[in-house]
């Protein structure tokens, strides 16, 4: 019998998660000074030392703070001596987690430290993000991140998938939920404000700020020893769409749907004892920096009202660039750790208008055991 490629041989779980209190500015802290307490937090939660970690992987971007090779400085916070096995992605930390997951699946390590950080306060992130666009046809026009999201929002409204009041309710629900999240930058309902780029208002846009996050991954019995209820990664996949916006249907996210399929999000729960009758997922942490993007993702993932979406408040409550996707995985895992979820979907995005998407399915052991 051919093994199902989606069912890996090794079980890997998120066993610890930590994040900063996300803030508009952190002028008094260098990047490593901002990151280090988060690294110490996840290590303390697991009792591991740097020397116990088999693989370390991080996600960040030098463009945010305008600091060349900032990730090498950030490594100072890890304590990388004697030399550690380490890697870095110039992407959201969710993709660093993906690399670490693959490393653990291959058997090259049993534990991994994954972290991500972003300081957007030194620069103007709307302009910085234009530099990731096609340099021939897009970047010379300096179309900022809000403008591109607004084109997508208008397309959704024209297609009848949402309207401005519905977008406002996404924003209100997110910030309302964030009142229970001590790390959120924008807790509590607030006015939608003026148009930034119509049809998106201030309330539809994520806050700009600084923050960091870290998780620890572990395999099998190591995970069970480090965490009372590990958040097992049952599947994970990421997919990318064409970079030219004009080639895409901005009202849909086929890359999210395909990644979710490949991650097993639409399959029945398949824990060790099964979870007969349980819903596919009870929680979804979606990385939707703009309210309109939650509409796209809900449709792509076919989420019904029974699924709790972004109980953390999501990226509308705190959006530290390069960390906000990893935080979705961490928040979903933390909910499983504390028994608030049995099976959760976590999503991360990168690029303009949800260009690239990662989906993971996390599951806790049956509490009947």
């Amino acid at each position, binding site marked *: 019998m051919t093994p199902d490629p989606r069912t890996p041989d090794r079980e890997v779980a998120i066993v610890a998660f930590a994040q900063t209190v996300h803030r508009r500015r952190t002028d008094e802290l260098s990047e490593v000074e901002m990151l*280090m307490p988060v690294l110490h937090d996840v290590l303390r939660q697991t009792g591991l030392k740097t020397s116990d970690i088999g693989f370390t992987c991080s996600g960040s971007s030098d463009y945010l703070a305008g600091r060349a090779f900032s990730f090498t400085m950030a490594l100072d916070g890890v304590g990388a001596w004697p030399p550690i096995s380490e890697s870095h992605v110039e992407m959201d930390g969710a993709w660093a987690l993906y690399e670490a997951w693959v490393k653990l699946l291959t058997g090259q390590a049993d534990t991994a430290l994954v972290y991500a950080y972003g300081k957007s306060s030194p620069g103007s992130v709307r302009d910085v993000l*234009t530099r990731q666009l096609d340099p021939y046809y897009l970047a010379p026009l300096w179309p900022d991140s809000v403008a591109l999201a607004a084109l997508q929002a*208008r397309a959704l409204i024209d297609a009848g998938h949402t309207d401005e009041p519905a977008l406002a309710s996404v924003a209100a629900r997110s910030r309302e939920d964030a009142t229970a999240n001590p790390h959120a930058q924008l807790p509590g309902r607030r006015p939608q404000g003026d148009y930034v*780029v119509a049809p998106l208002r201030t309330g539809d846009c994520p806050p700009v700020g600084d923050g960091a996050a870290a998780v620890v991954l572990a395999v099998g019995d190591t995970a069970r020893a480090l965490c009372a209820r590990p958040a097992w990664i049952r599947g994970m996949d990421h997919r990318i769409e064409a970079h030219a916006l004009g*080639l895409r249907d901005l009202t849909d996210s086929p890359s999210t749907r395909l990644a979710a399929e490949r991650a097993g999000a639409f399959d029945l729960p398949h824990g060790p004892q099964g979870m007969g009758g349980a819903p596919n997922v009870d929680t979804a942490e979606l990385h939707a920096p703009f309210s309109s993007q939650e509409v796209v993702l809900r449709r792509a993932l076919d989420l019904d009202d029974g699924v709790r979406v972004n109980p953390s408040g999501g990226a509308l409550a705190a959006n530290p660039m390069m960390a906000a996707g990893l935080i979705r995985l961490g928040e979903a895992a933390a909910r499983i750790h504390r028994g608030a979820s049995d099976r959760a979907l976590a999503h991360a995005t990168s690029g303009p208008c949800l260009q690239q998407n990662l989906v993971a399915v996390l599951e806790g052991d049956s509490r009947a055991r």
Partner: protein
Amino acid sequence: MSAAPVPDTLRAPLVVEFPFTRSLGPVQSAFLTGLRERTVLGVRAADGRVLVPPVEYDPETAAELRELVEVGATGTVTTWAWNPEPRAGQPLTTPFAWVLVRLDGADTTLLHALDAPGPDAVRTGMRVRVRWATERAGAITDIACFEPYESADVHGTRPHDGVFDDPVGGIVAPARLDYTYSPGRAQTGYLQALTERKTVGERCPSCTKVYVPPRGACPTCGVATTDRVEVGPRGTVTTFCIVNIKAKNLDIEVPYVYAHIALDGAGLALHGRIGGIPYDQVRMGLRVEPVWTEGSRYPDHYRHCGEPDADYDAYKELL
């Protein structure tokens, strides 16, 4: 030694700016040269669709695309977003609409700006045409913007060989990003001490090494450096090199010596120039002191301080 207080945060403007010089593939070259000649070209994809703006490779099959066609300079808005406050570098300086436009004959859309009096004058499905820039060089900005223009959608294309006189082979894309840099707690303390002509490091509470300049963390132990320690002012040359090539804009005669200097009390060497002594007399173990110039925020160079050379054993761990 004292617990490092939280100093006032330093800030300074930081500009990251460079002109990216990018070469063009044959399809991009034909498209951008065409814009210079007020002609809009698309490319036919493997599935028969006409892609505008055109790409070198099929977005679905990766097949090389070469069949160029000419499309209209008129088109239809497929989505739009009203931009009340244009930002630096954007196509218009007055409020405008970002639009995706499907040009007549094309099956995909192009991003650009639409010059319109206000959001009430813009709707999905409206007809527009290219407003050409007066000065055109072979770039996407040769389209100044779009403007409202009622016309029939004649959805047709004409074959085009993509050949123009003097085709553009590349673009220069200037990129400038403005930042306000703040160095963090540890480096702020270091910089503030320098204004008093003092050099301070920070000690690792775990391995007791003193880092100069401090970056706030011990890279060996992965913990915050906590205690501020003044080091120097004298130090020892641990190793050095002789620079024979004059750097651009540098007002120093070659050859000169660039050295690693372990300031007394520091756990690692910093680097600086050695002056006041012939370059071929500089040696490992040479004892040096900083030389400050008026108004400078850091030592201009280091010079021999007259002490006998340090024993190798005294600095061998700092090499």
